[in-house]
């Protein structure tokens, strides 16, 4: 490897335990190993006597205090104090938005500022249910704001409608059970009074899973698990933790970190998504290469169904007892019951953590490198490959550099890569890496990966680029809100695909998006970009981002949906799966039969029919 990258590595690796906790930088890493989130400002939950929605946007992503905006000088800025990027000026963003989308600061499409409660339909209440519910003492509400907040996930059409102040069918009642037994009571009452229950965890769904079925005539009760957020015990002998399913990812990690442990499960939504939600959708975390996906992490699940509680009798690490009943629960998307408690594996916190990045001359070489890394089974905790467009996007999100020295270094790096090494800036792409473990091994591992990368023309490009890549993950959802302020709408979607098809699917789906946009009358070429976010032995997970300027379109959301639909068709035609971890919800239901065959559908249906014959869990996801 070149001395150039060696240098950068030495500059920046760090021992997590070596530095005193008061150092801001390291403190952050010890408590939540995330480039994006500053956990000192911990999430406030209802148990702190403040409803979660008070600090969250009602019609956009994330915290109310954090958002992108253009300041008076016309520069992009990220507000708040929660993220690394917070309070910073992002000089390149405006030009990127203007040149990528043809967006213009003069053409604004502001969101409706506050929820107009009169637009919300009055609740259909089941009086008998309500009466008995009151007697249990479980908190509930039919306040319009509470109901609207739990009526949606974060699909584009859902947020777009909210911004326009359009409210469809929303839950009629919200209940906040505090523990497993509360849930048992609620489900019993719901069965008794034929009320429709929809479990609600973090609300980060992107599959229309939280949308109330418009055809539902019964009273719909949103069962919000957010109060069930305790770690009930930690078993240090077996390295497991028993946790209530309503806990949110970042809280779980923070609380475990306090005892020196972690789950290592870090989906991109971990700031807001809940353990129960992960189980219900078969979630996947960024660091699954070390820790595994949710199905690898779960040891025991307790779920309340209309037929009663389902759980296993022991915590044996593997069983041969017929088909694993956990697999009826994982991915059931709230159609069978409510997951209340989960025992999951925990790990001691890693001693050492290091980001990294590699620049490849083109995407093809990058994919070949990832494939080789997977073949040698030496993938770091995380390895992601961004295509050229995303690389440029990441570049546009660089905060204002403070020192001349940094900008000089940046210039030097750019010169080295494009001029000296002859990389075409319009073709090169970047892989971001995250290594974790004990120091010796990390360094050894790092060398192995960089050596492989070198064989595919990859040049180490420093830790900073890697870290910024991961930060992007957390702020990209906020960026969509900024786009929506200026006629730009977009979304991401994912798939998993065998290795030999990765390049083909990336090319074809991106091209399909561009072509569909053109056919549907979109005036400016869309942003159509992808990244490979996970590697497996036999394939990879691919994420697509897609956004366009909708000026001149009368029904932008419909156009958006048509394009997304076409893109999904393209994915399936190219051997990709219906979903890697987002789930099916109602958005992708139409493809379920061809995905799992009619017999497969029959099997799932028969389980549903047995467990929930009266369709109490009536969110109508999946089937």
């Amino acid at each position, binding site marked *: 490897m070149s001395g150039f990258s060696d240098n950068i590595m030495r500059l920046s690796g760090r021992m997590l335990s070596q530095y005193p906790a008061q150092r801001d930088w390291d403190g952050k890493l010890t408590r939540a190993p995330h480039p994006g989130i500053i956990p000192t400002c911990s999430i406030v939950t209802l148990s702190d006597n403040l409803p979660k929605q008070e600090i969250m946007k009602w019609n956009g992503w994330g915290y109310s205090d954090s958002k992108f905006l253009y300041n008076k000088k016309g520069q992009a800025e990220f507000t708040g104090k929660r993220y690394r990027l917070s309070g910073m000026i992002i000089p390149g963003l405006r030009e990127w938005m203007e040149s990528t989308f043809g967006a213009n600061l003069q053409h604004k499409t502001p969101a409706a500022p506050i929820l107009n409660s009169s637009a919300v339909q009055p609740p259909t209440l089941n009086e008998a249910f309500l009466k008995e519910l009151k007697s249990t003492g479980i908190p509930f509400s039919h306040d319009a704001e509470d109901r609207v907040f739990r009526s949606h996930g974060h699909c584009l059409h859902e947020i777009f409608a909210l911004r326009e102040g359009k409210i469809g069918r929303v839950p009629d009642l919200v209940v906040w059970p505090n523990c497993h037994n509360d849930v048992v009571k609620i489900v019993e009452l719901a069965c008794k009074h034929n009320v429709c229950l929809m479990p609600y965890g973090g609300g980060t769904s992107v599959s229309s899973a939280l949308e109330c079925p418009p055809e539902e005539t019964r009273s719909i009760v949103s069962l919000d698990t957010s109060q069930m957020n305790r770690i009930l015990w930690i078993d240090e002998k077996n390295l497991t933790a028993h946790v209530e399913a309503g806990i949110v990812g970042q809280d779980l990690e923070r609380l475990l970190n306090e005892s020196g442990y972690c789950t290592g499960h870090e989906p991109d939504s971990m700031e807001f998504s809940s353990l129960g939600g992960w189980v219900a959708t078969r979630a996947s975390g960024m660091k699954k290469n070390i820790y595994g996906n949710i199905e690898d992490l779960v040891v025991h699940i307790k779920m309340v169904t209309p037929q009663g509680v389902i759980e296993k009798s022991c915590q044996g690490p593997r069983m041969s007892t017929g088909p694993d009943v956990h697999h009826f629960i994982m991915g059931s998307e709230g159609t069978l019951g409510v997951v209340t408690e989960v025992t999951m594996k925990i790990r001691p916190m890693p001693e050492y953590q290091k980001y990294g990045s590699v620049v490849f001359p083109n995407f093809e070489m990058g994919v070949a490198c990832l494939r080789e890394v997977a073949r040698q089974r030496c993938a770091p905790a995380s390895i992601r490959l961004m295509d050229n467009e995303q690389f440029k996007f990441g570049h546009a999100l660089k905060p204002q550099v403070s020192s001349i020295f940094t900008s000089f270094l940046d210039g030097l790096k750019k010169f080295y890569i494009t001029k000296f090494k002859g990389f075409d800036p319009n073709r090169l792409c970047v892989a971001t890496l995250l290594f974790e473990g004990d120091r010796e091994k990390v360094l050894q591992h790092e060398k192995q990966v960089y050596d492989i990368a070198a064989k595919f023309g990859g040049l180490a490009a420093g830790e900073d680029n890697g870290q910024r890549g991961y930060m992007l993950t957390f702020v990209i959802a906020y960026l969509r809100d900024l786009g929506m302020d200026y006629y730009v709408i977009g979304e991401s979607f994912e798939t998993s695909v065998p290795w*030999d*098809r990765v390049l*083909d*699917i990336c*090319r*074809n789906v991106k*091209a*399909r998006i561009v072509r569909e946009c053109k056919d549907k009358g979109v005036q400016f070429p869309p942003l159509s970009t992808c990244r490979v976010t996970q590697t497996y032995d036999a394939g990879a997970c691919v994420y697509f981002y897609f956004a366009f300027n909708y000026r001149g379109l009368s029904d932008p959301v419909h156009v958006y949906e048509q394009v997304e639909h076409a893109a999904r068709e393209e994915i*399936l*035609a*190219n*051997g990709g799966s219906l979903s890697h971890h987002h789930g099916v919800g109602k958005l992708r239901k139409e493809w379920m039969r*061809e995905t799992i065959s009619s017999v497969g559908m029959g099997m799932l249906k028969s389980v549903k029919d047995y467990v929930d014959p009266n369709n109490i869990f009536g969110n109508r996801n999946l089937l």
Partner: protein
Amino acid sequence: MYSGTASLKDEEEFTDILEERRRTTDLGYALRTFNPQPYKGAPYSSTSDLKKAVLESQYLRYIAKEIALETGSSVEKVRQEARGILEEMSHNLQLGFIRLMAYTVNKVFKRLFRSIYVNMEGLNMLQQAIQESPVILMPNHRSYVDFLIVSFILFTYDIPIPVIAAGIPLASMKVVGEILRRSGAFFIRRAIGSDKLYWAVLSEYVRTIVRTGCAPLEFYVEGFRSRTLKSVVPKLGMMDMVLEPYFKGEVFDITLVPISISYDRVVEESLLALELLGVPKPKESTTGLFKASRVLQEDYGCMHVNFGRPLSVRQLCEGKINRSEYNLIPRDLPQRPSTEIQDCVNWVAHLIVRTQEEGSLISPWSLMACLLLQAPITTLTEEGLQWHGLTEKTLWLRKLVLDFRGRLNWPDSDVMSSTVALHHSIVHHKAGRVCLVQDGDPASQDPLSPEEGVMRTAAAVLMLVSYRNQALHVFVRPGILATAIHITKSTQKDELFSFFCFLRDVFANEFIFIPGRASQDFDEACSLLQKCGAVHMSEQEVTVLETGLEVLSFLQKLLQPFLDSYQLIFRYLCENGAHVFTEKQFLPAVQNLATKLILSGDLHTFEVLSSDTQKNVLSALRRLEAVTKLRAGLYITQKELLGGSIPTRFPLC
């Protein structure tokens, strides 16, 4: 600028590309800067990269292993053999030779043709398309002259030079073979049959070219040069290979560009007729080429090269296939495509040939040929046809062609006599009459035997037939309807439709019908006949109008030779033929019978003497399962079918 006909819109204007060539030096032209915009997805790859990619492909490895297992030879040996095949096949495109080619071809073309008209709009669209996705150039093939015309034009207009699929005999021509190879030709053996390794190498070679988009690929979907100048039912082998990268998702899209090349006069016209009558075609050889140089002395009029609208395979196949059928088997392994995919390939291939037909320009001479062939043969050979009548009728036919949305190549002045003058080898115009020129040495005093006389006349007639064939595609659908009306005497739409379908089915080897479009074809026929005032249509009925008799009779007579020919062969197989017969027996026997009947005045067409017709009938019968192939060249008739439903439905008129 020259506009072909009044019916062509501005965008379809043609430019004579020879005009500029005549004004500049040949050398200067050949050495011009050539800087085409290639396919944006293609990284640069040399011919050796291409060969390496083919040889090292998973697919070829797999096949080699399989063959080694089957034959008991070593994998290395099989791979060595594959390398040999690839060497024989590969193109070796080099700019230097393109320049040499352009220099030579330019000289030859300037000699042969008055003008070469190209539609610039089509070229512009092609230029665009080439940057977007891999492009397949699909010209029709009527003359050897076609072979380099597309490369010549693309060189002239700074568009990437294609690699061209050619028959292996061309490769064996001394020097010329190598020049062609370096001009982008790659060579395919004629009878591949069941040679598994050859198929594997060829298909991987073709797929790799398409997949990488390293150069546009040009091939003749008709498979070979049409001896009859009529479109040939497409061959699916190459089409399959070309489309597979799309089906398997290896490329986002593939662009097909149908190219219609039309000639006023075809260089090989006399050879074609002789070949059809069983005189074997001369082997392609370099000396043969030089001997043929006397053809350079002749005037061949104009040539039109019409670049069709680029067609997106993705759009064509939408809703027709489900690409996910390739999801469960590695794409590198051979997989028999589903019937859905096969049907789609067949459909696309037919569509391309139809589009080529629609894009070709019909010359006044083709129309005259249609009319001349409807005159009794003795009139043609002896007293001749009245010039005045012929020109009147040709003008009438011109109008009909325009009604039928045919594209005409109708020069502005002096059409008729210049046309006849150009075709002095077929007819001569003297004293207000037009007669057929019959070949043969007039000085020879040896009287011809009656059979020889028939063959002599046949040679002349078949030349005429081939020019008629250039216009047939415009008339076929209404012609079949006219025939159906004539035979069934029915006015009921249902009945006509069913008979229309029957004829369409019988003649599916003769004319290009896009599979699965019988009812559209019928509707098209109805609307065209209605448009020209021949019939009146109602919900249930089609009634002939008094004013339409002339059109209907023309159309019906136009197709009569086909009916007669098919009928004769059906009858031969029913009555005389043994149950089991060989192709070798069959062809001369039919020819003998036909000669006899012509001499006795019982048969009025010479077309049954054409081996092409005979082969088409045989293919049709096999398709209709009236005849079964036992093994190569050996057939058995299915008497019950042949004696039953087909002839009874087939008109005995």
